């Protein structure tokens, strides 16, 4: 029964194709070759052309990204090369470009982003655990929370700057200090950490949870001993990528009052501060050409920090995957 049907289907699907190719081929050559072979040969060639075209289109897309990035990096390194030395890391900003460095900005970045991670990762992972393991997705308020977290991830960074300025700096009265900056960045990247952690938690197979619960483990024991360890690679990767985003942000911190000229390292949560992107912004807006060179060198430093962080993400992922 079924064989008959499939044979008939095959025939009917092959017929229009044959008609099409016959129309295109020269009538003499077409008639001599066996029908099936001819059909296979022509469609094969057309598919090959299509596949090649598609592949080159994909390569082109990749090239656009890679070439742009390559040109940018090379140009920046070449421009900044004269100032890429230890002086950049050890000296403080100065009005005289010859003796200016970025130490306060580098230290400021470490303070602000370090604290940001300290605030964001526990809160973000906690929220993700609640949403994935405890919240009933059928309840309207949980769905509302979910949609809003997705939306928050897409809110422009400057809006978070306004929030930080209004709520943290002025409302609570923290002032223009490290703590206010790291909290503002935390709010900015929290949705990213939540979304990445949720995905990591969701990818843990349910059979693991059931297996644990069936042994008499409580829900918390199951999460703590089975789900979280299995989700660590995903959570770590997402968190580090979120921190990388925080490192590159200038706009919200400018609005918040990150100073553009700070000649000392932060000493605590209540210290005024600057960060690398703000320092770069400041140097680029100066009229002297020497400051442009400094800015390029500082960009290279920022890129290296980002590269190190992303490598750490990859390392953590591969290490935990091997060990699980």
């Amino acid at each position, binding site marked *: 029964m079924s064989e008959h049907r499939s044979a008939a289907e095959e025939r009917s699907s092959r017929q229009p194709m044959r008609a099409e190719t016959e129309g295109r081929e020269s009538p003499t050559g077409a008639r001599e070759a066996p029908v099936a072979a001819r059909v296979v040969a022509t469609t094969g060639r057309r598919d090959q052309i299509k596949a090649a075209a598609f592949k080159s289109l994909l390569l082109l897309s990749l090239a656009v990204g890679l070439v742009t990035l390559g040109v940018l990096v090379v140009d920046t390194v070449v421009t900044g090369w004269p100032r890429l030395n230890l002086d950049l890391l050890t000296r403080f900003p100065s009005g005289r470009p010859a003796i200016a460095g970025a130490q306060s900005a580098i230290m400021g970045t470490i303070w602000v982003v370090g604290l940001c991670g300290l605030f964001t990762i526990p809160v973000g992972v906690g929220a993700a655990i609640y949403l994935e393991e405890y919240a009933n997705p059928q309840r309207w308020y949980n769905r509302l929370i979910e949609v809003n977290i997705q939306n928050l991830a897409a809110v422009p960074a400057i809006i978070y700057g306004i929030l930080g300025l209004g709520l943290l700096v002025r409302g609570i009265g923290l002032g223009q200090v490290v703590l206010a900056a790291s909290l503002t960045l935390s709010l900015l990247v929290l949705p990213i950490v939540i979304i990445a952690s949720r995905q990591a938690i969701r990818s843990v197979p349910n*059979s693991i949870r059931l297996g644990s619960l*069936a*042994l*008499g*483990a*409580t829900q*918390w024991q199951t999460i703590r001993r089975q789900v979280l360890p299995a989700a660590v690679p995903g959570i770590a990767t997402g968190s580090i990528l979120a921190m990388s985003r925080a490192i590159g942000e200038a706009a919200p911190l400018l609005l918040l009052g990150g100073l553009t000229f700070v000649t000392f390292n932060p000493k605590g949560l209540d210290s005024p501060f600057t960060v690398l992107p703000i320092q770069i912004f400041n140097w680029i807006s100066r009229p002297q050409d020497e400051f442009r060179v400094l800015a390029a060198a500082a960009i290279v430093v920022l890129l290296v920090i980002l590269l190190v962080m992303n490598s750490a993400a990859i390392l953590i992922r591969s290490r935990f995957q091997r060990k*699980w």
Partner: protein
Amino acid sequence: MSEPNSEGGPDKATAGGGTDIDVKVGRPRVPPLLTAESALDEYRSASPDVDRGEPVFTLDAVSVLYNKVTAVQDISFDIQVNEITAVIGPSGCGKSTLLRCFNRMNDLVPSSRVEGTLRYHGTDLYGPGVDPVEVRKLIGMVFQKPNPFPKSIYDNIAYGPRVLGIKDDLDGRVERALRQAALWDEVKDRVKTSALSLSGGQQQRLCIARALAVSPDVILMDEPCSALDPISTASIEDLMTELKQQYTIVIVTHNMQQAARVSDRTAFLTVDVDPDKTDRRTGRLVEYDLTEKIFTKPADSRTEAYITGRFG
């Protein structure tokens, strides 16, 4: 966390919580769930030929509903101690749903509800104050697809005792559980290696060993061989026959030959499809009897039709 039973009531405290284990028998001396009226030890000492009367599980008009749709309806039968009870029936008849009632795994589905009474050694499993976590410590489960944790073989077995707060003699427990599951000789040299490196059949025996390591009273098996090859299936079946000396086993299976081979009693469920809404399927118990009788002289014509392959 290390002592999950610490909040147990006075009854549990006198029974020593879940940690008071009779090492010789390898099971809780008195299940904490039913300290007062348990006669478990008497069952054990009774001769196997004696009709023990009091069953492990007593189902009285049990129905399971998901979102007010009845998945299984009005199931009543008893499950006897130290026997293998098979639940068979066509796809969608609610065999697995019914099985998940016994250790309250259905609780994990927020919209589910169980009606009727399901007694375990006389205690209403769904009565007030019964903690599903405590139930699952006594009533273990083996799933359709082997689901070892992504840890070492040792950590898989030790996981149950660890979450129950048992710290003494973990090595001994792991070895005993692996021996009981007939896996020890195959893995004794590599217990610290990944459980995922085992074959499918070994993984399933590991899951059985994992369930045994917490010294349960009952083991529920949800089509434990459906993902395995015939040789692995045979070894699991041998294992079940071995294990019923000490445990009460309830197995759901698609495979009628398997039910005939291993079980002492068989429950046959069928499915009613609502003529108006085809997605509304309700499972019902057709017949429950000694396996031998079910497969030779079934009382109901539907059972006969099913076991002779005329439907399902």
